[in-house]
């Protein structure tokens, strides 16, 4: 395919491992508001890449374009070298407000993606059980979302995304509604998941610390019109304990550098 050939010419190093490629994507909302302008970005397989930027920079828009929920004004998105035309089973979305079914218990919520695909009950509940265990919600299978804490609800949202066995997980500010203490625990669990699951994570956040702590790679977006402004790869040892990482010079320097570059945009 010609598509593939061009890819290799453009970015010979990243191609082999790129699970998601964004090519010249622009987005204009009625207004007109130029939300994204000519965004080119590669997301490496098995890594966690963060879209970071001030509010209104179009990071959630970009994530939803990758998800196939929004059609870009121009440009294409390739997932596993195939152009995106709407949502697909190789991508799963984790929502900022969880988007759980309030009338369904935890196990049905986790298995819901599989239920929509017509997987038989016993089979899909077995898969759901596995991910409920993985995210630490054993014993809550028959509880309903309103009986869970906010943090637990997002764990359900995450388990649902994992259960459909998508290659690419798209997380839209998943921790923004969660209190600080729970969030830290959640971030540590997410790192463990990234290491264990070997899937591609695309993560949207406006928290610099969160981005640096979690990411293999950070795409810093500029404010409207959003475009890729800098690519940052935090260099710190993942073998350290979470508390050590948060005190490590590499971590602190990266946070500081990002803050310095963003400062001009924040009045």
């Amino acid at each position, binding site marked *: 395919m010609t598509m593939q050939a061009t890819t290799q010419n453009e970015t010979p190093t990243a191609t082999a491992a790129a699970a998601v490629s964004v090519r010249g994507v622009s987005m204009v909302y009625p207004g007109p508001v130029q939300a994204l302008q000519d965004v080119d970005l590669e997301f490496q397989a098995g890594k966690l890449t963060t879209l970071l930027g001030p509010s209104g920079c179009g990071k959630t828009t970009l994530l*939803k374009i990758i998800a196939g929920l929004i059609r870009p004004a121009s440009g294409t998105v390739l997932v596993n070298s195939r152009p995106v035309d709407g*949502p697909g089973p190789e991508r799963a979305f984790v929502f900022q407000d*969880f988007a759980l*079914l309030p009338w369904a218990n935890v196990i049905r919520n986790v298995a819901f993606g599989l*239920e929509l695909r017509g997987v038989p009950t016993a089979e899909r509940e077995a898969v759901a059980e596995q991910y409920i265990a993985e995210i630490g919600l054993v014993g809550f299978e028959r509880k309903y979302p309103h009986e869970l804490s906010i943090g637990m609800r997002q764990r359900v949202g995450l388990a649902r995304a994992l259960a459909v066995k998508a290659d690419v997980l798209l997380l839209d500010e998943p921790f923004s509604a969660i209190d600080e203490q729970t969030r830290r625990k959640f971030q540590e669990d997410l790192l463990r998941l990234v290491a264990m699951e070997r899937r591609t994570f695309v993560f949207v956040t406006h928290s610099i610390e969160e981005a640096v702590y979690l990411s293999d790679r950070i795409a810093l977006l500029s404010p409207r019109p959003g475009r890729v402004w800098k690519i940052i790869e935090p260099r710190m040892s993942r073998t350290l304990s979470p508390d050590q990482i948060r005190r490590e010079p590499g971590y602190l320097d990266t946070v500081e550098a990002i803050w310095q570059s963003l400062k001009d945009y924040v009045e």
Partner: protein
Amino acid sequence: MQILGYRIPNAVSLLLWATVWEIVGQARITILLPPLSSTLVRLLEIAPTETFMTALGITAQAYLLGVGISILIGVPLGIVMGRSALIDRLILPWVSLFVSAPLTALVPVIMVLFGFGETTIVLTVVLFAIWIIILDARAGSRGISQSLTEMARSYGATRWQAFTKIYLWAALPEILAGIRLGLVRAVKGVIIGQLLVSVIGFGYLFEIYSSNFLMEHMWALLLVLFFFAYLLDAGMGELERRIDYYSAARH
């Protein structure tokens, strides 16, 4: 309610007004209002008769049919209207018009078209009940959060799956509220329809009782109707309370 520190059960007010009815009735102020006690005695007397049971059967059948049609058409239509701007624009003006129109005036039109039979009664019930059911289902489906519809799409739900597994449930509190109002309006519909047609069901009985000044009979009939209407309303209220836990958690 509390008076002087004592909790007063809700039934007390009912009892109080029943007593007032009895006293006014016993005082023989007007022939139009017989005492409650003799009305109740009359009720026990006419209830087992075949005329009454037949009338009740016909009324119940027309009512249930009309309500069933209203729900089966009204709920899906309302949900679709809430999700599709095009269909909404097409149908909403008519629904808004009919929900507040003096529908009684339309019953003679139905009579001309469908005759003096059960079809007319059923259609009258639908005419009275369906609009509010459509409107409330529409409101419910418009209120579904964007992330829930995006969740449906991103996890690959077909239109049918989105409708049956998500939209219907997400809009359920509003749908039930609409059905509850629809049920009460349907009681009006079935009685008004029968009164105007006046050859079948309770309408026929009302016609006989009132033209012969059988006030005890008439009040007995009204008691039965009020009782059923109240029962339906209370039943729906209970159903709504059961799904309360998630109607608050949706947004």
